[in-house]
């Protein structure tokens, strides 16, 4: 209390030549006190919890009651031998590649169109961006119905004479994953568009002019000047959307529950099912750790690179 009041006095009437040493010493601790709650929370909820999950993944815990009998790496070897998890891994890879391609092509195409100084582009920009504000659960609810082979989009294709586009969509093991890709791309491609558009608008006019003055055609200028400048943005988009794609959960639950068969099962969904529906805690923890490693491989170099770049700036 005494310290606090001396601090107040110092604030109101600072002594000539600086503040009192005591005031300085106490106040210099304030920054640490301000971030302490967050640091403790993150230390526990992120790093502590990851450590605990890693520990659970080395135990044989199944059933409601914890069982910490060590089984070494058995959970992991079992997991990778499991047909369901093998399907999960290949589904995730296929989904991620298609989803990234869809988002980048659609997003870049839309960004180029919106960069053309046409009138009314704000309207279109909002049309491409609004799905980002919506829950995956809403997206899944709507697309689940639109991709219902008997009631949904197929009927529209009939009506507008595009019958060849008809597909069993979510009802068939061969096409269900594409249904998920379409819904996810619908939701997230605007993110790519926003990133590319910000990048395109950041290119100074002199640079575009320079390409033109050199006698390059519009297309050559685009390929030689604009496209290389988009490379770091594409990398960012791949990493950010890629890690979202690896973790995908909501759309799977809402649209397919992993089916038919394991056609749309993903690690993020199987972790939930194994842990909270089948009580296979050891296996759930192992899936969680595999997911974490996949995401970390993508994100950690990017994080370090971003921070280095910032220090240089």
């Amino acid at each position, binding site marked *: 209390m005494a310290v606090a009041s001396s*601090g107040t006095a*110092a604030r109101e*009437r*600072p002594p000539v030549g600086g*503040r009192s040493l005591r005031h300085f010493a106490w106040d210099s601790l304030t*920054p*640490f006190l*301000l*971030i302490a709650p*967050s640091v403790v*929370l*993150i230390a526990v*909820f992120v*790093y502590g*919890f*990851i450590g*605990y999950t890693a520990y659970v993944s080395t135990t044989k815990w199944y059933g409601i009651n914890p069982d910490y009998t060590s089984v070494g790496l058995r959970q992991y070897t079992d997991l990778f031998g499991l047909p369901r998890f093998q399907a999960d891994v290949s589904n995730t890879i296929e989904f991620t590649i298609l989803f990234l391609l869809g988002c980048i092509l659609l997003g870049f*195409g*839309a960004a180029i*169109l919106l960069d*053309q100084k*046409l009138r009314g582009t704000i309207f*279109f920009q*909002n*049309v*491409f*961006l*609004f799905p980002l*504000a*919506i*829950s*995956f*659960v*809403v997206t899944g*609810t*709507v697309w689940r*119905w*639109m991709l219902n082979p008997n*009631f949904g989009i197929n*009927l529209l294709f009939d*009506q507008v004479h595009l019958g060849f586009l008809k597909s069993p969509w979510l009802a068939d093991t061969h096409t269900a994953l594409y249904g998920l890709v379409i819904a996810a791309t*619908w939701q997230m491609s605007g993110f790519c568009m*926003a990133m590319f558009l910000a990048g395109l608008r950041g290119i100074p006019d002199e640079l575009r002019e320079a390409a033109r003055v050199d006698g390059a055609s*519009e297309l050559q200028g685009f390929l030689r000047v604009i496209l290389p400048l988009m490379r770091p943005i594409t990398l*960012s*988009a791949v990493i*950010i959307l890629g*890690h979202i794609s*690896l973790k995908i*959960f909501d759309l799977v639950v809402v649209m397919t529950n992993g089916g038919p068969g394991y056609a749309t099962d993903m690690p*993020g969904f199987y972790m*939930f099912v194994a842990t909270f529906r089948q009580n296979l805690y050891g296996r*759930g*923890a192992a899936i*969680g750790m595999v*997911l*974490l490693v996949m995401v970390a491989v993508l*994100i950690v170099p990017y*994080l370090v690179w*971003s921070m280095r770049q910032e220090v240089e700036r």
Partner: protein
Amino acid sequence: MSAATTITPRRRWLTPWAVFGYALLLVVSVFYLLPVYVIVVTSLKSFIEVSHTTPWQLPSAPTLEPYGAAIEKLLPSFINSVELVVPATLLSALLGSLNGYVLSKWRFRGADLLFTLLLFGMFIPYQSVLIPMVLVLEKIGLYGGLPGLILVHVVYGIPICTLIFRNYYAAIPNEVLEAARIDGATVLGIYRRILVPLSIPGFVVVLIWQFTSIWNEFLFALVIVADPDQQPITVALNGLAGSLLAQYQVQMAGALMTALPPLVIYVLLGRYFIRGLLAGSLKG
């Protein structure tokens, strides 16, 4: 003269391209707007009409009945979501702004490393923390209802909020702070009287971002809230599909109801929403 020659070829090149550009923009727009059309049209049909018409046909006798049914089913969870989102958003914004202030203006040794470790928290798959999270929430008596979910959203919201505020405060010149410091202002005094008033747009970005993310979230809500009376609206909407299997008109009305608050915010404050979005790629 030289200005005219650079402008003229541009104009001529623009006109056919503009037509082509609009045509392409319209085609792409159909893809984005089709689900909106389906939601609106379907939610205005009666059950009988839904089963006898295609989703693309306009309702012959528009009815608000599906909305009545959706509100009856989802209103309690809508209120739950409001009770979840408001405190969680405010708390994470407060923590984020304090962290951002310290990490941008009171840089100590290791501050960048600490910041990087903090940021990693926003990328982790939550599946890798769910098991201990449930155990801890059970132990402290917060498992099963909204308070536990609020805590979890506040904690995992810290990284993105800190990031946005740190970038925001970095643009405020240090001289302003040094001047205040010489005048005898304390660390907290500088935050309250200088940083907070200057950071209203930063708060808008963070509040919008957190509101939207937490409103839309599904995994934590599904795992943590065991009590059906405390379910947030995303969980309830998904439950609707199970209980009203073929009642697509009610499902669509419910989907619209769930999407409404974030959409209203997007329409009113879209620019801030996009800033939050781009901040998430670490480059905003």
